[in-house]
């Protein structure tokens, strides 16, 4: 097997000779030239995803005033940020809801503002109001602080999302008799609709399903700026069963991603209100895949038809943690607008934006071809499956 190293690819980027294609463009190249030919031709494949990603948030250091303070409770625009880290550090989580929100008192609650929205407002350059309280110490005597600040006034702001880009994911239906309001959207009773959330063939971890190139240190597009993969995400589960294409047919790989919030852009970082569920953050991520060899090329050529996900009942099975999936469906069918499940034709709705995922894959492609973005070689690889599918000739 002929191979390339990330170093070699980086020097091609510097020389302006690197061949970069998006994961969608790669499908036809692999189909036409085979994995071997594609590996020779292409140096980097760019992927993208844009959707609601819980387990997101930001570490903020709001700086010391005079006198100094060791904050024990912090609120930003009335949304609590966890302050048990250090004197003026806190972690603002995307799903934290504003104080006094009626929640689901009148179901489904609207959840109009929360941590995700604060992050969007900060990135948009808006002023936010920070309040903090403390019990006071000899070294940090201040007990109360209220200040209006913008992202630029923060000493540091680091987006750090412990679980993003969860791949693969469920297709949701509702077998119960009532409409339900879930993080998978609104599901009508008696399996009258289905929702799914993915960028499919553009999705980072579906294009590198054995995590051969994506690992700790991989540089990425994150929220409009650049970031780094800093660990496997929480719930990373490489042993999930896989299909004959090596694609997991259920929840498997996840990423922890980190980046400087100050260089991000609100177009790719948006607060989300999920009726009846809560708030979250829509995150845009793009991961470049260095085409090290024909196996990497083969997997980066995966198409929607070859990716299946389980259909799960959110009316009873999912909330109760019982039952089995109702079957597998592929993304080509899901994106077609309707799908057959248990003999019934059901309309399908996506929840993640492929339009924006495509935009991200193209931006990353431009960054790399113009020489402004170097790849980061993975310094540590994630746990993966013990065996991999064979690459066809």
């Amino acid at each position: 097997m002929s191979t390339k190293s990330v170093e070699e690819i980086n020097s091609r980027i510097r020389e302006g000779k690197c061949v970069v294609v998006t994961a969608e463009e790669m499908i036809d190249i692999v189909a036409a030239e085979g994995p071997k030919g594609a590996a020779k031709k292409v140096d980097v494949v760019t992927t993208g995803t844009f959707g609601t990603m819980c387990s997101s948030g930001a570490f903020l250091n709001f700086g010391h005033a005079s006198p100094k303070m060791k904050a024990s409770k912090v609120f930003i625009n009335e949304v609590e940020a966890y302050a048990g880290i250090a004197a003026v550090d806190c972690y603002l989580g995307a799903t934290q809801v504003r104080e006094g929100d009626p929640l689901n008192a009148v179901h489904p609650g609207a959840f109009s503002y929360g941590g995700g929205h604060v992050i969007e407002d900060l990135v948009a350059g808006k002023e936010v109001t920070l309040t903090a309280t403390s019990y006071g110490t000899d070294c940090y005597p201040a007990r109360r602080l209220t200040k209006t600040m913008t992202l630029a006034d923060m000493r540091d702001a680091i987006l750090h999302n412990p679980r993003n880009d969860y791949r693969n994911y469920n297709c949701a239906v509702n077998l119960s008799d009532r409409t339900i309001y879930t993080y998978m959207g609104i599901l009508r009773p008696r399996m009258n609709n289905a929702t799914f959330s993915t960028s499919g063939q553009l999705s980072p971890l579906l294009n590198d399903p054995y995590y051969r190139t994506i690992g700790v240190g991989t540089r990425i597009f994150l929220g409009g700026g650049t970031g780094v993969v800093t660990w496997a995400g929480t719930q990373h589960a490489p042993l999930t069963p896989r299909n004959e294409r090596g694609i997991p047919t259920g929840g498997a790989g996840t990423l922890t991603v980190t980046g400087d919030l100050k260089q991000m852009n609100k177009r790719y970082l948006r607060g989300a209100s999920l009726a009846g569920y809560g708030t979250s953050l829509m995150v845009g991520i793009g991961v470049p895949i260095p085409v090290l060899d024909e196996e990497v090329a083969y997997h980066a050529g995966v198409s929607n038809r070859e990716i299946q996900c389980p259909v799960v009942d959110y009316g009873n099975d999912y909330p109760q943690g019982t039952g089995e999936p109702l079957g597998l469906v592929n993304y080509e069918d899901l994106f077609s607008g309707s799908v057959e499940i248990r003999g019934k034709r059901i309309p399908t709705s996506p929840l993640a934006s492929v339009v924006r995922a495509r935009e991200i894959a193209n931006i990353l492609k431009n960054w790399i071809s113009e020489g402004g973005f170097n790849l980061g070689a993975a310094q540590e690889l994630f746990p993966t499956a013990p065996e991999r599918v064979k690459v066809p000739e």
Partner: protein
Amino acid sequence: MATSKNVLLIFHQEVMYKPIIHNLVRNFDLIFNILEAKILPRREGRLILELSGDEEAVRKGIEFLEAEGVTVKTIADQSRRDDELCVHCGACTAVCRPDALSVNPETLEVEFFPDRCVACGLCETACPMKALKGVNIERLGDAV
């Protein structure tokens, strides 16, 4: 030319109990479907109709309603999607029965066809970006 149009009729307190709809049916050659109806606590009746018939008949029917003191709003002129806020995620298409919101299978953009909207308001609840405005029978036409 035959036409079809979804309209909101607002019956203020003074005209709420007049036989206006009865006269609309009797005197104009119109077919209509009642899509939604609601009486608000401020004693105001709201009715969403799909009016179809000859273009001239539809126009005259609406003129008649207005002359009787009914406020008539064309739903397509009232429903809005804020394209700055919309991210084309598709969550709204899960609830829109008349396909006023649907995913273009080629581009995967979410397209909005206000002409088909029946102001059921469900997409307002479904949209995580609050990009859909004024598409709710209770608030439609208030301050759009």
